[in-house]
């Protein structure tokens, strides 16, 4: 061996090909990973396709007056007033954000700017536990606690109302708002805070005039994510808003109501087939498509804002 090493190297093309086994392993790994990515895309496409197909049937065959100007959501009787569901969804979302926005943002400001490191270390996991509570549990909480001791204290609402469902959805969204907002606040460089303090700004002044404006796009992103979370929430509304599948058109949040999601869930429960008029089945896909477009638009908006965060400073 030793005399071989004294010779000048005689390299051939084959010396540069590499171990064929390693080359093959690399190719297999790449194929598997591509497959994993491809499957998730294919599933998404399949969902959109199944949604679009039935929704298309509905859209082309339905009598549009029953969708736009009738008096409520009674799909088994061929009355598909989408306004009922959209108004219900909007109320739940608005009430939820009225709860989750201030509380979530306040918690984020506290955690990011005021809490000592060890307090933050304890509080943040607690907040994330709240995010892990199944929404069905919050549905019961809405009926057993929020409705009697909050909503009924201020209004003459019944035990089931859009308002108590909205508050519960808000509670569910607090951790999301708090967590994403806190990330946005903490990504503001501390040099900017020091600049504020160095100019004689109080802590709260620095927070409101330096930190919040610098983080504003991230905060908006948090808000939009929470909105699309609230729009998509099903179980809480299903339990706490009280409309068991049908709902007359109603604009008051203290009345029972239906959201897009709850309307779908109530029709699909308890049986393997949806009964009723000819288009009842397809109507649920139509509602699903509306919901899909709504959340898609919101997520695209959120994505744009998140992108802007990176350019801010």
């Amino acid at each position, binding site marked *: 061996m030793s005399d071989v090493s004294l010779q000048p190297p005689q390299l051939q093309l084959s010396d540069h090909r590499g171990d064929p086994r390693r080359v093959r392993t690399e190719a297999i790994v790449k194929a598997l990973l591509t497959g994993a990515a491809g499957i998730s895309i294919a599933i998404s496409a399949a969902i959109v396709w199944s949604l679009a197909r039935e929704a298309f049937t509905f859209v082309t065959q339905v009598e549009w007056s029953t969708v736009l100007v009738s008096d409520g959501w009674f799909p088994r009787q061929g009355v598909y007033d989408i306004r009922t569901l959209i108004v219900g969804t909007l109320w739940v979302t608005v009430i939820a954000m009225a709860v989750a926005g201030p509380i979530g943002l306040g918690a984020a400001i506290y955690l990011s700017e005021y809490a000592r490191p060890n307090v933050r270390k304890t509080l943040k996991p607690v907040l994330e536990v709240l995010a892990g509570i199944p929404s069905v549990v919050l549905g019961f909480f809405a009926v057993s606690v929020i409705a009697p001791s909050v909503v009924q204290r201020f209004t003459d609402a019944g035990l089931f109302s859009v308002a108590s469902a909205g508050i519960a959805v808000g509670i569910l969204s607090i951790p999301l708002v708090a967590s994403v907002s806190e990330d946005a606040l903490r990504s503001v460089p501390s040099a*900017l805070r020091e600049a*504020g*303090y160095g100019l*004689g700004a109080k802590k709260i002044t620095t927070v409101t005039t330096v930190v919040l404006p*610098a983080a504003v796009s991230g905060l908006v992103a948090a808000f939009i994510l929470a909105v699309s979370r609230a729009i998509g929430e099903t179980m809480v509304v299903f339990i706490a808003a009280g409309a068991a599948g049908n709902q007359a058109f109603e604009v008051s949040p203290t009345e029972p109501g239906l959201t897009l999601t709850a309307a779908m869930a109530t029709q699909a429960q308890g049986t393997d087939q949806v009964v009723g008029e000819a288009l009842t089945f397809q109507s649920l896909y139509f509602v699903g498509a509306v919901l899909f477009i709504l959340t898609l638009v919101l997520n695209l908006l959120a994505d744009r804002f998140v992108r802007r965060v990176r350019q*801010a400073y």
Partner: protein
Amino acid sequence: MASTSTTKLTEPATVDPNVDVTPETRGRPEVSGREVVFEVSDLSVYYGSFRAVRDVNIEINRHEITAFIGPSGCGKTTVLRCLNRMNDLIEIARVEGRVGYHGVDLYDREVNPVEVRRRIGMVFQKPNPFPKSIYDNVAYGPKIAGTKGNMDDVVEKALRGAGLWDEVKSRLKASGMSLSGGQQQRLCIARAIATDPEVLLMDEPCSALDPIATARIEDLMQEIKDEYTIVIVTHNMQQAARVSDRTAFFTTEVNPESDTRTGLLVEADSTDKMFSNPSDERTENYVTGRFG
């Protein structure tokens, strides 16, 4: 170089007329009649149980530029940040001793650090303009202080004072982040002087800048020192020699029990004396480049 600009200075009236103030001997020896702004005595700073700096005693005079020099980790910046209580922002920092400011101990219980920082402004190592417009950057301090009057004039005066007006007057609405590094640092100086402070603390203000931008900042310091008292931390000994009237040299000592270093002030004197004939051997070794 920058030091040529010192010839156009008018020296403060408190200077003894017998003292030579030509550029060569610009650093004044201690004269009676000088006005002391800061009187630091037996200052020690701890981070948790770690003593970062010990037993600093120094006086800082009005309308002078005082430079803090010394090797890394010797506590220059820590001491500087005691002068406007910026160390309060570090949870674990604790200060012992006295930081007298016109006779008042800044660490007195009744002193509000927010008020302190309105009088004692700060310019940081890395330019840190707000992601706001140039105008809003400068107007920030006066606005939060509730200053009445014409904000446009305040902004223009501060930008002129920082030698930035001509470069930015046509684009005051542009983002402060759009400026070059040197311009950003002058914007930060404008922002600091807009609140009309008495003292400007500068923490290595040129360390992130190129030599031309550095020279501009140094010139600027000479131009504004008649109105402000300036304390500058610098790693650059030439800079200290060029710009300062007095120099304080800090060094570190290794603690025998633990493998930590504590900073201490070796001596403070006129810059000329410090660089030509310092009293302490450690200063001489440092300024002649034999260590650090």
